[in-house]
């Protein structure tokens, strides 16, 4: 029996008194790979922001079951300002350790995560000179420096070409299977979500489905979102 990691009960978020997603009830265990799916504007990103503490719930609550904020690694969507930010890859990855000063321990951690992301050779390159795929790997390495138990990813494959997207998903799956990292990922790419994740949360402003991927495939939502077969 795996330990419970997150429990949401009647969770809801609002912007200016308008509920954007509500009635979220779910139970996530350690080692789970949960994918959040739904149309644009269905409250997926809001839910993620709530999960990492960027947005306070309007009702209900999230129970982290003993896990603290510092056990979570977050990969937000990239901002415009980052595209031409003068920072070396190492500086970006190290900032994930959230230490006030970087000692040998932090540098070792950063090196280990860069190696896992296969970007160790880019350490001294400038972030702004990298390709989109490389940039995402750097940000993933940073998130991994912060993550002890849970990795939270907001559309990690936005703007990447299909091959690089595939590699990105493989790296995330590897973290889940090989290192036992729990994953929560928002994605509009439903077929990949169903391929990699073992649990699905479907939002259409309120929770429509939560359960295992096998169960989800039998619902009508899966057919609607996929608009055809699963690969």
């Amino acid at each position: 029996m795996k330990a419970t990691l997150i429990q949401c009960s009647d969770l809801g978020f609002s912007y200016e008194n308008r509920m954007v997603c509500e009635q979220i009830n779910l139970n996530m265990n350690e080692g789970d790979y949960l994918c959040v799916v739904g149309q644009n504007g269905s409250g997926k990103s809001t839910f993620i922001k709530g999960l990492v503490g960027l947005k306070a719930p309007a009702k209900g609550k999230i129970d982290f079951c003993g896990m603290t904020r510092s056990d979570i690694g977050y990969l937000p969507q990239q901002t415009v300002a980052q595209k031409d930010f003068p920072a070396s890859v190492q500086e970006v990855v190290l900032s994930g350790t959230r230490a006030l000063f970087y000692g040998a321990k932090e540098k070792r951690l950063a090196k280990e995560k860069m190696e896992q992301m296969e970007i160790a050779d880019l350490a001294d390159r400038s972030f702004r000179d990298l390709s989109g795929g490389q940039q995402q790997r750097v940000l993933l390495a940073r998130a991994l420096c912060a993550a002890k138990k849970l990795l939270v990813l907001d559309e990690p494959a936005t703007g990447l070409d299909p091959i690089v997207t595939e590699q990105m998903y493989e790296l995330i799956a590897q973290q889940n299977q090989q290192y036992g990292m729990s994953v929560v990922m928002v994605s509009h790419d439903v077929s990949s979500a169903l391929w990699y994740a073992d649990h699905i949360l479907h939002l259409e402003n309120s929770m429509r489905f939560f359960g295992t991927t096998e169960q989800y495939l039998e619902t009508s939502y899966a057919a609607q979102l996929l608009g055809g077969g699963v690969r």
Partner: protein
Amino acid sequence: MNLILESVLYYPFMRRALVAGVLLSLCCALLGVNLVLKRYSMIGDGLSHVGFGALALAMALGLAPLAVAIPVVIVAAFLLLRLNSTAKIKGDSAIALISTSALAMGVMAVSMSSGMNMDILNYMFGSILAMTKADVVLSICLCVCVLVLFVVFYNRMFSVTFDEAFAQASGVRVNVYNMLLAVLTAVTIVLGMRMMGAMLISSLIIFPALTAMRLCKNYRAVVVTSAVISVVCFLIGLFISYIAATPTGASIVLVNLAAFIAASIAARLLKRG
């Protein structure tokens, strides 16, 4: 050269301008890197206009200029940061709105209190004679604060500047850092605008950071280079203005412009070569 240096240091007002100027240039450069990277460059400009309005108003009412200007500009800095994040009016229009209104109020205040044409010119374009002993002391305090922020909380500053969402999610109190940045910027601008002029002070915040970003590829190098460029450009500008009797603020800005153009050309040549 020695002779010029000696004669420069002979005048107390020059000594004050030299000390305060070097410290303020350093503060501007360090704060500027973060403001530019956060896309807040225009805030510096907006705040200097607000500072002008506040100074003019204080003079017209016979109040101590700094005691009025510093709190007013700090409040304006908070307002601008908030507008930028909540954005009912978009950030850039909000800045234009606030800065032109403050400028208009300042001009009104000056024109209503008679016989201050010289003062208005001094506020707008700065005067080397404007630095008092109190200004120098304040500059030293400010510089210590900015340096502590950048030495002790260097990694936090990077994290907050590079990715606010990530920093906040990992438990960094982003708002505290943004407020610190706003307060320090506000004080820097009010102190600096007396020498540099309300119209010109924001260039001291923006230019060194942009010049450094042309040349350097990582954050640490950008911060250090920006600080060095800022202080060197200030010194060159000050000496030019002393020797050629040109306006101090304008001389410093033009030296900064020259450095920026040189860096841009160098960067382009390096890329090609």
